[in-house]
């Protein structure tokens, strides 16, 4: 212990570590009515770190070559010590990341925390959501399985619906007329370098914005739930008399992370094939189309929307309009009230929207 103290002292006199800890940890106060939903961001950070670590471990044996990719994944799953565990953690983790991200966004939505001055927090979060979808989609191709190949074939084909530039875009995405080795190279680069770097940068921006605006106060259990910020000047939302982030809320975060890990490991060990179909374990065969190609669960609503409309372009435009509306929600919803129960129209729209998304996903699954 004396050695540890000496080490901390050594660092402290050089960079003022105790000052930083006092300001950002023990002195960083959070609202007294903070709830468990505020832990979603910490869980997401933990998942992202796990994805990076398992991804790096997979890179040791994975070969991004169309002739060798499937075999290398099979090797990881069967020959590498604990390779199956690392791969399953990575694959299940990607699905969990989308799921927890949805919970995080829904909690922010219902607590109206996206309202000014937090427009940029919402927007960076929304872009992060699209990037997580992007990293999941590009990762899908890498095992070079039947599912990877055909799901990517139909997914890249989607760009054809964009007027004028569509066909050129498809060729650009695929690196040729058809999905093939150049597509794998492109998706690999996007998956392991470009998108993770983008996500890391945006996570940094998201945390910076959080640090600058302060943590929002949940609207529950308060008499006055109106947003008092007028936009007349910079304001940091401090919480005098609040609970310290460390150790109090850090322990709550830790508890949430352990509960998440229990759920995550239960899936990994007891039902790891929840997110896989049989085609996920067959090598890609460009000459044999699987009977039914369905996207991942989080794309099912988009998939079904495209099928509802008579033209693919209309389906795309409707989704585009819906998503643009969501992305720009803080700029559209300028009301000051933050308690969802005092906003019946908002509640109807939000719950209706979630039900519609679930309904479309279920329909897409069974269609």
């Amino acid at each position, binding site marked *: 212990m004396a050695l540890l103290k000496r080490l901390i002292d050594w660092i402290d006199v050089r960079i003022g570590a105790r000052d930083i800890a006092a300001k950002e940890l023990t002195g960083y106060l959070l609202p007294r009515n903070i709830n468990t939903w505020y832990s979603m961001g910490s869980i997401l950070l933990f998942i992202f770190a796990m994805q990076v670590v398992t991804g790096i471990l997979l890179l040791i044996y994975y070969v991004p070559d169309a002739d060798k990719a499937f075999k290398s994944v099979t090797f990881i799953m069967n020959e590498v010590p604990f390779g199956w565990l690392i791969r399953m953690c990575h694959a299940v983790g990607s699905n969990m990341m989308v799921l927890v991200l949805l919970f995080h966004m829904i909690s922010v939505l219902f607590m109206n925390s996206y309202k000014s001055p937090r427009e940029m927090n919402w927007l960076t979060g929304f872009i992060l959501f699209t990037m997580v979808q992007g990293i999941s989609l590009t990762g899908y191709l890498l095992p070079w399985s039947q599912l990877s190949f055909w799901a990517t074939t139909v*997914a890249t084909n989607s760009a054809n619906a964009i007027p004028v530039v569509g066909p050129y875009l498809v060729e650009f995405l695929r690196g040729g007329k058809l999905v093939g080795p150049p597509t794998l190279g492109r998706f690999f680069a996007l998956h392991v370098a470009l998108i993770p770097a983008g996500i890391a940068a945006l996570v940094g921006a998201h945390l910076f914005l959080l640090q600058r605006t302060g943590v929002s106060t949940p609207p529950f259990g308060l008499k006055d739930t109106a947003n008092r910020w007028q936009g007349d000047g910079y304001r940091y939302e401090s919480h005098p008399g609040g609970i310290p982030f460390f150790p109090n809320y850090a322990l709550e975060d830790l508890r949430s992370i352990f509960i998440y890990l229990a759920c995550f490991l239960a899936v990994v060990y007891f039902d790891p094939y929840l997110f896989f179909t049989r085609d996920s374990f067959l090598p890609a065969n460009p000459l044999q189309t699987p009977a039914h190609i369905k996207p991942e669960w989080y794309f099912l609503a988009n998939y079904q929307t495209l099928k509802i409309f008579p033209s693919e372009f209309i389906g795309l435009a409707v989704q585009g309009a819906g998503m643009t509306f969501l992305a720009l929600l803080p700029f559209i919803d300028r009301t000051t009230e933050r308690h969802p129960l005092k906003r019946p129209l908002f509640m109807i729209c939000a719950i209706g929207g979630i039900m519609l998304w679930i309904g479309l996903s279920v329909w897409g699954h069974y269609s």
Partner: protein
Amino acid sequence: MHLSGSLLILFALLLPVASFAAEPAEIVCIQCHATMPGKIGEPVKLWKGSIHAENGIACNACHGGDPKDAANAMSPARGFLGAPKEPAIPAFCGRCHVGVLKDYLASAHGRALGKGGPTCVTCHSNHLVVKASLEIINEKRCSQCHSFERAKTIRDAMQETEAMIVAMDKRIAAYKGEGVDTEGLEKGLFAVRNRFHTLFHNVDVGMVKKESAGIQGDLKKIQDQIKALDDSRQQRKIAGAVAVSAMLLLALFAHLLRKTFD
């Protein structure tokens, strides 16, 4: 800022999902024949439920022709063979099933070819050819030509082995669907199954019984490998239970520790 942000989001979000409904084109044989009524269209429906369809073996693999050019699809110049006459059927199928052809020709069935004896399609049917199994040897089929008695004796002798092969095949397929490298197991079972299937065209009861016993010995070795996989899965579940319990305990510990700071 708003416009570029929306365009970026629109592009990033929608690009991966559109047009999942698009289906790749089928070969011209199926495109035309599937829409035709009666006898000309029926083979397509039958073929779709066959083992050939399951393995991607389409019309042109047997009948020749050009599956990509509708105008010349059935041109002899492009190798179109059409349907074989009855005595030519074994040779037609035997282009791929070489070993089976040899067994068949050596059997009583094969020796009766052209003299009223059965051909491949008599027992296996033509377009709706399914995975060979002992079910093929049944009273309805065999009694088309002779009594079922002898065939039944042979079938009973092979029943146990067949049941073992079918059960193992299912287990291996299930493991394959979980990402297990089943190549070795599949190859092993394929070899044993082929050896076993050579007996299908044999009508010597004594030989069938003797060979079946030897085949069962080989199957036992494959079964041991499947058992090892079962054991490793069981161990993983035990490890999983420990890991999940540990996480829940840690969550409880963090919760109780947090309470001490209230």
